[in-house]
């Protein structure tokens, strides 16, 4: 396990180290200037937060339907990463907004629903930690509910117009801005996959440990 984890982590770390250099070479956006470069880390975190919520929701639905422990492990690992990438999104966004919009936070549909999604998955983790026996079924229901939020968050900026950029911004970027963005995205995605695999492995080992303890008690 550690043999795979370390090289992937090393490549991701190297990509993260090079990312600021690549981002610095990208041209400045005409109205926002330097602060717009937060976008190169904000966008990948946000997309991975949404992806992770879907992974957790699908894993939970699968667990509720089939009672497969591997589905629960996937859902749990993805829920923890939703909280991590959600935190990155919710911190980098206001830092960008403070300069670009003049305020740290705006209670618009996109920002409010993203915060809500993050809180749902924080609740999921709290339930898993303190909920006691049977909490995996309850938390699976919560994750499915969290996943249902994702399409609304995604389309919110197109339906309820605010000052948050629309989803059409990314595909229309010029090449010298889109190349560093996709590089950063690849670094984040690689890191996400590595962490998800390692986190699932941790749950697998925890269940093996529980099994061993039960065998000893018997």
């Amino acid at each position, binding site marked *: 396990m550690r043999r795979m984890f370390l090289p992937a982590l090393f490549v991701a770390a190297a990509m993260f180290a090079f990312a600021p250099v690549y981002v610095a070479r990208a041209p400045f956006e005409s109205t926002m200037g330097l602060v717009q470069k937060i976008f190169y880390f904000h966008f990948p975190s946000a997309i991975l937060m949404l992806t992770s919520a879907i992974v957790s929701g699908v894993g939970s639905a699968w667990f509720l339907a089939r009672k497969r422990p591997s589905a629960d492990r996937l859902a749990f690992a993805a829920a923890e990463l939703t909280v991590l990438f959600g935190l990155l999104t919710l911190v980098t966004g206001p*830092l960008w907004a403070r*300069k670009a*919009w003049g305020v740290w936070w705006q209670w618009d549909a996109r920002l409010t629903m993203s915060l809500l999604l993050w809180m749902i998955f924080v609740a999921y983790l709290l339930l898993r930690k303190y909920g006691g026996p049977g909490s995996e079924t309850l938390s699976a229901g919560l994750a499915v509910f969290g996943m249902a939020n994702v399409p609304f968050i995604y389309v919110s900026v197109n*339906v309820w117009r605010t000052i948050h950029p629309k989803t059409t911004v990314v595909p229309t970027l010029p090449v010298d801005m889109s190349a560093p963005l996709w590089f950063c995205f690849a670094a984040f995605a690689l890191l996400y996959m590595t962490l*998800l695999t*390692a986190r699932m492995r941790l749950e697998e080992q925890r269940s093996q440990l529980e099994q061993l303890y039960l065998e000893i008690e018997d």
Partner: protein
Amino acid sequence: MKAVHVAFVLLIALLVFGHEGFAQPQPPAGPPPQIEGFVPVDSLPPAEQLPAARLLIIAYAFVWVAIFFYVWSLWKRLGKVEGELHQLAKRTGANAR
């Protein structure tokens, strides 16, 4: 695990490129307002006088620190469980003998 990886890639592709189905037609943009003459930086509203570099550095540093902390915590948890598993396996092996 392979199925999870494939599903993950498809999901990302859908989120990134699926915007066209939801995009709404754009109204034609009017000409930008004309600025007459130069505006001294002191006359700008306070939000525009904020140094952008500080915010940018905080954002990038926060991402680095948060990821580093999470990797460290995961590594520590994995090490602890692996160690406990190893010890328990040795104990059960010794008992079996």
